[in-house]
């Protein structure tokens, strides 16, 4: 099976600092990859490079043979490469429903006048978006709080709202940056279940950065470990974690801290 997303010798430098060096990876359609590594390993930078938030210094990133490098983050998102953030960023003064509805951006929308004058195409699109949002909310169990303002909700619901916003239109590549951070065990479990079911049903390609090794073990059939901006191991989570380099990177760093 040909790879959906290909990274070919990707490097990112900030001034003199090499954040990511010569990373080559391939993600097949429907794969679910855990990205692990100690703090500062370059995981988020790699995610930023794929989603277009950081320009790469050298190398190539391609999806379905389309070169992503010249495209802005928004353009990549419209191609279906979407991401979540470590810190949840929502429309703070709006409801859960409106927050998820805004995710319909990636569906074709009518022009300025069409939207402002509520012309028939706008009515059709709105009905379509409302339906998609409602379904997503129901699937993720958010429907009971759909009309609550997000700034008055607990963190877990906010995190779930953000994920719902990414999923309301089916992405091609879903990038999540520590989605479980700050959640308690019960919420983590629910989150893992949601991601897994969505992933299986939708056949989307998912890359998750996660510190919680257990979560990666449970969720991801495949994982990649980064340290100092380089790939140090890849394979099933258990294989990766037993690699001496990973042990060194993780526990070496941890004991040194």
């Amino acid at each position, binding site marked *: 099976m040909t790879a959906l997303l290909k990274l070919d010798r990707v490097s990112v430098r900030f001034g003199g600092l090499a954040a990511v060096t010569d990373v080559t990876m391939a993600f097949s359609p429907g794969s679910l990859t855990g990205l692990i590594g100690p703090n500062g390993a370059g995981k988020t930078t790699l995610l930023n490079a794929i989603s277009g938030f950081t320009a790469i210094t050298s190398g190539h990133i391609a999806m379905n043979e389309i070169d992503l490098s010249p495209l802005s983050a928004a353009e990549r*998102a419209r191609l279906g490469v979407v991401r979540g953030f470590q810190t949840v960023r929502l429309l703070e003064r709006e409801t859960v429903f409106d927050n998820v509805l805004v995710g319909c*951006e990636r569906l074709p929308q009518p022009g300025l006048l069409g*939207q402002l004058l509520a012309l028939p195409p706008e009515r059709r699109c709105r009905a379509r978006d*409302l339906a*998609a949002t409602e379904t997503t909310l129901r699937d993720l169990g958010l429907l009971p709080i759909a009309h609550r303002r997000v700034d008055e909700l607990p963190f877990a619901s906010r995190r779930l709202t953000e994920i719902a916003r990414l999923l309301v239109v089916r992405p091609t590549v879903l990038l999540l940056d520590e989605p479980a951070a700050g959640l308690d065990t019960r919420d983590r479990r629910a989150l893992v279940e949601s991601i897994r079911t969505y992933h299986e049903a939708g056949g989307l390609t998912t890359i998750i950065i996660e510190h919680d090794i257990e979560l990666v073990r449970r969720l991801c059939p495949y994982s990649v470990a980064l340290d100092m901006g380089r790939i140090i191991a890849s394979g099933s989570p258990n294989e990766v974690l037993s690699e001496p380099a990973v042990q060194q990177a993780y526990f070496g760093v941890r004991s040194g801290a």
Partner: protein
Amino acid sequence: MRLVPDLAVPHRPFQRAAGRRHGALFSAVALTAAWLAIPVLLGQYEVFIAAQVMIYAVATLGLDIVYGRAGQLSLAHASFFGLGAYTAALSGPLGIPLWVQPELVVLLAIAGGIIVAVPTLRLSGLRLALVTLLFGELFDWAIDHSLALTGGSQGMTVAPMTIGPFNSQGTVDAYLLASIIALGATLLTRQLARSQLGRRMLAVRDSELASASLGVPIVHTKITAFILSAVFAGAAGWVYAYVVGFVSPTTFNLFASVYFLVAVILGGAGRITGAWLGSAYIVLVPEVFNLVGYPNLFPVLGGGVLIAIALFLPGGLVEGAALIRAQLGLHRR
């Protein structure tokens, strides 16, 4: 359990609570009654003031789009208001026919909006505020230095707009004219809030990073917000000039722009009711101070209100009212 939305299958549209519908109907009836009562019950001057509230509401809704919704601080809003006003004022001397003027106002506002927006797209925060401020200063300067045409700082008289028996400087006629654009602007803003365009603006305001990750075209959204706000302000200014019959630069200077900000923030950024409340404040409160003989206290209050609201009630009056309702338990779900 089917978890992935299947767009091919039609879904039941999402229904809002039925109670809201009744509330909306009730407010519509009440507002219509008030609208009819004002010219019947109140005197000539009070009707004129009511028309002013409506005109300023249109401009405030405009600032609410660019600042309240898209989060772009514009200190040139009064200049766009002035752009419309001077279009009306100069149409007489320049012989621009009435039917061309609305299109001209819209075109000028679009051009002005783009001129302000484009260099500022690379900027945010302080730099954006300063460039818009400078644009406002440039507008003032242009008026001051085109004496022969505009009368400079002395201002100029605007001939009324007359269509058959309609005369824009007649009290009831002015009230009607202001009502028409106020209704139009309010409906447009309401539709904007319901549309993806409106949500894009909120997304750009709250986080440009998150917006980009959702595929929101940030530059496009900002320009659209600037243009819409300029068109609203321009239209309001155009009607303002015809209704008041006199324009001079002080109505459109930096302080006027700050008053519009006061209106948006006091009422509640991103809320239509808020823009109306804010407009009522900036038109009616000076009248009250004038009535009791202390017209100069209004700017003091304006400054104080801006600080107090930003510190203690950042959501403005609308959110404050919602908080009180929640406290009283009237709105339990």
